[in-house]
């Protein structure tokens, strides 16, 4: 067994006061640890959002194992197949044959013909110089009734340009056929969760008389295809940007990026931009703002000065959220994040100046494996990793912002904070399930 030989209070290298932190990467890169918080979605979960599509992963067996079991745990094995790469394929250079014949063999065996097949290739294909266009050309020739698209499980590229997650959120729309545009239809793109119906953004779109489409709302392949009829794509998750840019060219759709934010001025600014794009006006939604303020007051009256910790899996804007809560009087002590997005730069500077003692903790630095996962007081965590690292059962169980947006999003989050502080959750059980919100047999 491991012998503890280091000082458990020595967090050097794994945490830093924000006053001393660098932006956007506060920590030195090195070996990485993986905490058992699995609520964030992976490329299998995201690909499954396309109704009736079938996934084929072409990888070495160690890469296949995680994705095979992701599909199985979400009860979607019937929409998932694999082709295994062996040493001989690397040595003999027959990777194209393996993809073409392997995918063809699988399609012929399936009990039902899928309308679309997502073929995921891996780091190996990238390094070996596999002729992927040739593979897709041949597959489309063999199966003209099936739409194929290229997806990627190539984590070696995660520090080189777009990450596999960003690419997946772009390729999610690559199967759309070109259709005539409907000036009264808009899409929200790039999210794994349907944006909350009560959110400022959805309410405003619907109130303005527009049809809203979003992949997580699609229940049939035809509904998915109707997304190409919208004239405008709206995104608010930074990982969706590449998808928005892609669709500008591929579908001749406008793209409006309205980053998720917890700041009043930013929310109003983005909602005004949305109103302009929809040819209408935004009045600042004072009622929603008032409800958000009251929900925060209720939360503060319950949580009082208990420590609040936030992690980056809960929201793409952890520093914006930390700033809001600190401004409202909450005792935010820690933010768990290995790096920050450029959207958070303004909040980083503000916090550095106004809350210099805020602790920034890494989540993958090696010491996180053995630092004590306890807090000396009852603690509220926002996010699964924050809950795991602080050992609290009082946590808000959301990932990726939870589908919330705007003042109503703040209201809902504040209510969830209140509820989480009062009612304990089974942290161990909940956070180990993959893909929060997906079916899970675990």
């Amino acid at each position: 067994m491991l012998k503890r030989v280091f000082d458990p209070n020595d967090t050097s290298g794994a945490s830093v006061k924000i006053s001393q932190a660098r932006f956007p990467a506060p920590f030195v890169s090195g070996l990485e640890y993986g905490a058992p918080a699995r609520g964030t979605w992976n490329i299998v979960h995201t690909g499954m959002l396309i109704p009736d599509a079938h996934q084929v992963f072409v990888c070495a067996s160690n890469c296949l194992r995680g994705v095979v079991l992701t599909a199985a745990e979400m009860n979607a094995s019937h929409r998932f197949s694999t082709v295994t790469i062996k040493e001989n394929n690397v040595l003999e250079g027959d990777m194209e044959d393996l993809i073409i014949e392997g995918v063809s063999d699988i399609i012929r065996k399936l009990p039902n013909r899928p309308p679309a097949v997502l073929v995921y290739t891996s780091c190996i294909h990238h390094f070996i110089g596999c002729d992927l266009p040739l593979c897709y050309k041949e597959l489309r020739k063999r199966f003209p009734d099936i739409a194929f698209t290229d997806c990627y499980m190539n984590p070696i590229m995660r520090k080189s340009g777009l990450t596999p997650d960003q690419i997946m959120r772009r390729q999610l729309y690559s199967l759309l056929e070109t259709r005539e545009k409907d000036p009264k239809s808009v899409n929200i793109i790039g999210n794994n969760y349907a944006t909350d119906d009560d959110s400022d953004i959805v309410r405003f779109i619907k109130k303005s008389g527009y049809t809203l489409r979003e992949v997580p709302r699609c229940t049939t392949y035809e509904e998915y295809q109707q997304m190409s009829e919208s004239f405008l794509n709206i995104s608010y998750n930074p990982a969706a940007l590449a998808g928005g840019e892609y669709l500008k060219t591929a579908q001749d759709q406008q793209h409006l990026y309205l980053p998720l934010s917890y700041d009043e001025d930013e929310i109003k600014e983005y909602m005004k931009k949305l109103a302009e794009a929809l040819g209408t006006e935004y009045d600042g939604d004072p009622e929603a703002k008032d409800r958000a303020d009251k929900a925060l007051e209720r939360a503060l009256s319950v949580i009082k000065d208990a420590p609040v910790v936030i992690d980056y899996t809960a929201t793409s804007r952890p520093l914006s959220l930390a700033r809001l809560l600190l401004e409202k009087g909450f005792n935010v002590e820690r933010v768990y994040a290995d790096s920050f997005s450029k959207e958070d730069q303004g909040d980083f500077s503000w916090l550095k100046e106004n809350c210099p003692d805020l602790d920034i903790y890494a989540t993958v630095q090696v010491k996180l494996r053995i630092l004590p996962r306890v807090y000396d007081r009852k603690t509220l965590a926002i996010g699964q990793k924050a809950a795991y690292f602080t050992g609290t059962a009082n946590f808000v169980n959301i990932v990726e912002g939870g589908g919330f947006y705007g003042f109503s999003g703040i209201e809902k989050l504040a209510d969830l904070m209140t509820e989480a502080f009062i009612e304990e959750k089974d942290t161990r059980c909940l956070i180990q399930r993959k893909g929060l919100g997906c079916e899970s047999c675990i």
Partner: protein
Amino acid sequence: MKQTQAFLSTYTADVSGVCSALFELGGMTVMHDPSGCNSTYNTHDEPRWYDTESLVFISALSEIEAIMGDDQKIIDDIVDAANQLSPEFIAIAGTPIPMMIGTDFDAIASEIEFQTGIPTFPFQTNGMHSYISGAGMALAAYADRMLDDAPAEIIPRSVNILGATPLDFSVNGSVDSMKRVLEEKGWKVLSTWAMGSAPEDLASSGQAAVNLAVSAVGLETAKVLKAKFGTPYIIGTPCGEKFNELLLKALENAAETKKSSAAFPDIPAEEIDIVIIGESVTSRSLASALHLEYGKAARVICPIETESDILSSKDAFLPEEDEITESLKTAKIVIADPMYRPLLPKEAKLIPLPHEAYSGRIYRAEIPDLVADIRAYFERSL
């Protein structure tokens, strides 16, 4: 077609096998990989991850490091982590990209060991083989390197259990049951490689009169210990009273004659309509128990690496989905992980035997402790 799985899962790979085998031994294991292997291992292959502070990390290999052949990054990162965490040993396991670019793991390990003074093991895994090879090579390397070569005084009726990992035996008490079976018959279990035994226990392994390889994972270690200390070994997993009698007798014979062997009896049968799919040693042990307890014959389909002489002439090594489908056409009863269900003929009955190395955590709560009670399992199912 070979290498396609339209319906099936895939077994835990070699790199996870290394991590699993060394998990409890106080070292630090590093998967040289961009990302993904880590979460696969700690989500699907390692039931001890949430509660046990074992040091398993990834190197987070990047495109530019791979293209430039920058081994210095992993060396520096491992040395830095070792200085922070002081592991007893360091293990580095490869994945597909390091294999493709010809990473010199031996040189990297030597350099790290030189800089830290900590024993460092290089493992030439590539993510294209099963956990049998990875866990097997890890335990064998540990035995070779970490055990004292000095001749040990043999303790009569003592035994080491070799090849116990959660990948084959989960965390359902099976390993404790094995110890109990042996101890109830007067055997002293010196160590279990590698669940539930401290490195100090493993250090005394050379004093065993005999070793028991309870899975294919343990075979390489058995051979190392035989070469190092002359310890004979028996192959078989405790499973059912009658097979256990055979196994215990084989242990006594081996201790006396110093000859190694497998404990499986011959199963005479013309037509066999029961099929067991799984790892070779545990499956053959189960087939033996089924024969001895109930007079029923079963053949084994082993889809993952095994030494050929573990399988009988009626058994088959079939790694491909198409081959397994074909072989199951005449089966009436199939004892296998539930994820094999899509391949079964309509009229065949599945007796679920979940295997952590196949379905991961999905059926963990239903994995039976066949060592403790095989009758309850079969009488519920047959």
